[in-house]
């Protein structure tokens, strides 16, 4: 068999073919062989999601004190002030120190980005009363202080600048209007979505970073017209990194004090070692594996203290961490068991950061974790050879031993991925906790090269967040920049530029319909198209118009971040910034894209198939009849409604070229309109095709569609086929879906594509089930798709969890690029997950 040809000697803690479990098991909380890890995990799960206002208070005071300083210095000094005043926490049994200037699992606030929604929700839509993603004030005093702090910030935040620039054409399409595109994430919060250069920080330490900034400052010449701005930038970097040193020393001191008071000799020794680790990495490089993990955690949490941008991803951890593991194993400094325990403690710790999102964002992007902490393992090295090592396997062991939301583990695969790694990956997948996801090297490397990277660099990609390819430490890609609801603007295609429900009930009626205007350009309607080509041309024109609105909006948002919230701490971790004295938010690094993603492509493809088949090919219905049916939300059109949901109409996902070609049209049309557009930072827009969980929230705002979807139902998820209330449109099994999805050139989607598959447990049972899944993945990847992930979870189990959430508190399900605790999701998203086709065999 082909899949058994390449082998590796790399081994994790356990045999590569260790069987863990098949699907979720109720009441099982001790997956790790390390009791400490199991206890830390349980402690995390039992903690509440609190709101912690300490950062809010500290950043506000600092901004008031430094109000007249240049913005970069104000940001740096506020950062320093937060670090010097933050309460420090060292938790029982923990081995890795550092939180995000808040207690574990409590959410700090970042008023630099936005406060209007915070104030509104604190006053009128309490966080604790949300349907999902609730957060809790610890006291009424805190709530009052929170409200007062918000008031000071009004008008000063990033979003205030964005709002001041937006015109009505941009607003009408945005989350403030008809939600054709949603730029919420960076409109109201930090950007994140990058991989810092961990190799470098471990090698040079914070003192090295500060020294590099000082050297840059020394090189500056007053002949440079940007001299002043660059000088301020370097000063800001130095302040931040020297503050980091002092902050870590505070931890060292606290650990020393706790060690002195500790009566348990074993714990005392651990505290002393942690103190010593902190003393070393406060300014210096990491000298041991433990110190490397400690410095990694400080570097990461500090960037999350500077900004609440999520999806700060860990890069190729099995690669950058390996030298420290290898050296310690060789010198006998560490045992494999303890190295494993440290990895698992670090994993649990990665879950601590949480983030309150505005209510609107929370609807489309559910989950209270900071989110997006993708950890990449496997793949090829810069020379194209397989990069698997012991840590690759150990990081998988750690994942199946902890089974938590974070990290979002990802295995890169290529044609020479060793059999042992594939089997271990599948063993984790079939344990049914939603990790890991799989990425395919060939199309992803091609996508990276199309951004202008040389082959060696492209091979070194890591994934950010869900599925976004990124060059660590060299790409500030604004991945996940915006969500575009293609089904919503398909309404304009059908209806002469108007929404299907255009009428006086609409909040925009007075500015729009009442004046005889339409929301979008009139590019024809189902009543006027004479040929199917005219329909496709109309789609193309709507894409052009709405992508214009979205991209120009994104550039406004981008500009506001540069103006109001530069990131001097993070900038040091990106190639180019310290060399040139330019902040990462101002285009200081090498690759400067913005990556918005399309949602609902299959819904559009199936809708187009209905038009093509029923109106133009078979001529069974007129365009006007179809238009009326969706305007009426299918009421009174029962025959047509049944027909478009039946096997008699072509649907995407069945290896049926008729519909698959239309999916390809949508995919390529979107990528074509996005690719090559310039960003304000000197990069290019990068298209992605994935929806995370936004397909559910977007569906709520979208009228009926011709694929047989009623108003309010979820639109299709990611690259997946349609499933409506009547049933799933893919009925030919997983290989047909794989074939359909592989008919598009995934490398065009330089911001990533995503495919979910739900397999029943018995399809992956036994040695045969495992081997068949390995073979399936192998053959699927040979067709050059970018990504796949699996839910090994039956609908019955999810229904049981809805009924008895108390028994399923730690049950993870794969939502999109990430896994989430099922019982914490909103009802609509839960239903969407249950309804996704469970492929049967």
């Amino acid at each position, binding site marked *: *068999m*082909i899949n058994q040809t390449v082998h590796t000697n790399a081994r994790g803690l356990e045999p590569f*073919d260790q069987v863990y479990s098949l699907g979720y098991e109720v009441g099982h909380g001790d997956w790790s062989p390390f009791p400490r890890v199991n206890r830390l995990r349980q402690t995390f799960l039992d903690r509440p999601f609190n709101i912690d206002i300490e950062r809010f208070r500290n950043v506000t005071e600092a901004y008031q004190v430094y109000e007249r300083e240049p913005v970069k210095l104000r940001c740096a000094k506020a950062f320093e002030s937060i670090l010097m005043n933050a309460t420090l926490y060292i938790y029982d049994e923990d081995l890795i120190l550092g939180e995000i200037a808040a207690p574990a699992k409590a959410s700090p606030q970042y008023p630099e980005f936005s406060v209007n929604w915070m104030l509104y929700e604190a006053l009128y839509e309490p966080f604790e009363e949300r349907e999902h993603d609730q957060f809790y004030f610890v006291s009424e005093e805190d709530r009052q202080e929170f409200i007062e702090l918000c008031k000071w910030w009004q008008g000063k935040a990033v979003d205030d600048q964005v709002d001041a620039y937006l015109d009505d054409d941009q607003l009408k399409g945005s989350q403030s209007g008809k939600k054709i595109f949603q730029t919420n994430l960076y409109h109201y919060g930090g950007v994140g979505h990058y991989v810092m250069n961990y190799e470098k920080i471990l090698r040079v330490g914070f003192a090295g970073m500060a020294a590099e900034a000082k050297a840059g400052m020394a090189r500056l010449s007053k002949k440079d017209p940007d001299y002043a701005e660059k000088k301020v930038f370097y000063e800001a970097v130095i302040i931040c990194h020297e503050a980091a040193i002092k902050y870590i020393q505070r931890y060292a001191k606290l650990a020393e004090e706790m060690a002195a008071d500790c009566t348990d000799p074993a714990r005392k020794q651990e505290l002393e070692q942690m103190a010593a680790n902190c003393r070393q990495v406060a300014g210096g490089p990491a000298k041991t594996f433990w110190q490397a993990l400690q410095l990694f955690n400080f570097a990461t949490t500090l960037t999350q203290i500077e900004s609440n941008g999520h999806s700060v991803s860990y890069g190729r951890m099995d690669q950058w961490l390996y030298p420290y593991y290898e050296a310690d194993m060789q010198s006998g400094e560490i045992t494999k068991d303890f190295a494993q325990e440290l990895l698992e403690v670090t994993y649990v710790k990665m879950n601590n950061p949480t983030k309150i999102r505005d209510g609107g964002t929370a609807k489309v992007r559910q989950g209270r974790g900071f989110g997006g902490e993708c950890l990449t393992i496997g793949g090829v090295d810069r020379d194209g050879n397989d990069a698997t090592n012991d840590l690759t396997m150990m990081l998988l062991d750690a994942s199946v031993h902890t089974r938590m939301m974070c990290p979002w583990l990802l295995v890169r695969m290529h044609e020479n991925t060793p059999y042992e790694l594939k089997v271990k990956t599948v063993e984790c997948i079939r344990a049914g906790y939603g990790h890991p996801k799989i990425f395919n090297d060939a199309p992803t490397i091609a996508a990276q090269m199309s951004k202008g990277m040389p082959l060696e660099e492209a091979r070194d990609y890591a994934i950010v967040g869900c599925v976004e390819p990124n060059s660590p430490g060299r790409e500030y890609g604004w991945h996940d920049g915006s969500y575009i609801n293609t089904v919503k603007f398909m309404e304009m295609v059908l209806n002469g530029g108007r929404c299907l429900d255009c009428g006086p009930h609409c909040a925009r009626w007075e500015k729009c319909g009442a004046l005889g205007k339409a929301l979008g350009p009139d590019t024809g309607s189902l009543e006027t198209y004479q040929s199917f080509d005219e329909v496709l041309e109309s789609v193309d024109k709507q894409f052009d118009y709405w992508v214009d609105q979205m991209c120009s909006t994104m550039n406004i948002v981008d500009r506001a971040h540069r103006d109001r919230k530069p990131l001097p701490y993070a900038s040091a971790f990106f190639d180019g910034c310290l060399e040139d004295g330019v902040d990462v938010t101002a285009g200081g690094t090498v690759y400067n894209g913005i990556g918005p993603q399309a949602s609902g492509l299959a819904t559009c493809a199936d809708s187009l198939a209905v038009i093509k088949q029923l109106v133009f090919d078979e001529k069974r219905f007129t365009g006007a009849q179809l238009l009326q049916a969706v305007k009426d939300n299918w009421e009174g059109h029962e025959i047509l409604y*049944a027909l478009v949901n039946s096997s008699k109409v072509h649907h995407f996902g069945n290896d049926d070229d008729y519909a698959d070609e239309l999916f390809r049209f949508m995919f390529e049309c979107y990528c074509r309109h996005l690719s090559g557009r310039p960003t304000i930072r000197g990069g290019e827009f990068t298209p992605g095709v994935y929806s995370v969980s936004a397909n559910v929230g977007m569906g709520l705002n979208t009228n009926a569609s011709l694929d047989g979807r009623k108003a309010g139902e979820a639109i299709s998820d990611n690259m997946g086929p349609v499933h409506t209330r009547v049933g799933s449109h893919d009925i030919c099994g997983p290989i047909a879906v794989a*074939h359909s999805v592989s008919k598009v050139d995934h490398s065009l989607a330089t911001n990533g594509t995503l495919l979910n598959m739900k397999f029943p447990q018995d399809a992956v049972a036994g040695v*045969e089930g495992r081997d068949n899944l390995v073979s399936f993945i192998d*053959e699927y990847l040979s067709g050059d798709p970018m990504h796949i992930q699996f839910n090994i979870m039956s609908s019955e189990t999810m229904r049981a969890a809805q009924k008895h959430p108390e028994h399923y508190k730690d049950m993870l399900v794969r939502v999109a690029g990430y896994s989430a605790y099922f019982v914490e999701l909103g009802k609509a998203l839960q239903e969407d997950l249950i309804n996704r086709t469970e492929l049967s065999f």
Partner: protein
Amino acid sequence: MNGIIFNIQHYTIHDGPGIRTELFMKGCALRCPWCSNPEGQSSRIQPGVYQSKCISDSVCGLCRTVCPQEGALLFADGKLTAIDRAKCTGCMACADACPADAIKPWGREISVEEAMREIRRDKGYYDRSGGGVTVSGGEPLQQAGFVEELLRACKEEGIHTCCESTLNVPWEKVEQILPWTDLFITDIKHMDSAVHKDFSGGGNERIIENQKKLVRTGKDIIARIPVIPGVNDDAANIEATADYILEDLEGKVRTLQLLSFMRLGEEKYRSLGMPYGMADLKIDRPEFQAHVSEIADYFNSRGIHCLVGTREKEES
């Protein structure tokens, strides 16, 4: 040449090794009451009724408009509930007309070339997984000519082939496909021919003769026992089966698979207006599964490689 199938299933992993494409052929002479593919019994194409999908006679009624037989379509509360099989000519006009998949055509004609086009699509998956093509049914050897051509075409393209058959056919039919078949899957339902005839409508003499002959050809064989409570799970029959495998079949069974009785296919019986013979059977599932495991242990103790389910390998 054309055959009549009632399904082509992709990524099937239960009937033979690896990832397979399975063709289910229509027509079978036996009438085992636990049969989970009742739509495979008749060799004719039949309409199946799915009442819950029917829009309603008054709103839609397209099936009635096209049906040539007055009164063949039976409605209750405005929904199509059944078809009077005595009146139905099997013209399938109703199924063609139905917009809602409420009338499913059980069966369609397919040419070897058409089938091969579907089969070829997944070739990469067979190659990776050690899979291939399985013909099943119904009794596929009732259409031995089609099966012969299809399996030959598969072999010519290097695809592994498997035939799941009752072997309740003249030996010539088996011989016909022998050169093109890598693996056979066949049932041993009961060792007592009278009992066999009692529940399945046919005795086991020809089956046993064919199985013995098949063993002598040296072909790989997976034998299966559908373990049905109160029918064939008693110690005497199990012991007789073990004797039969070891003596008459010379132990040359690659794997003996025990398929525990499952209540499968009930909705398909309903769609065809056929009574489900096992409707009244009540079993205590955990107790029954333990019993089936004991049977497997017994076979293994006799030196027969036996597993519960459709697997061939033990979990490590």
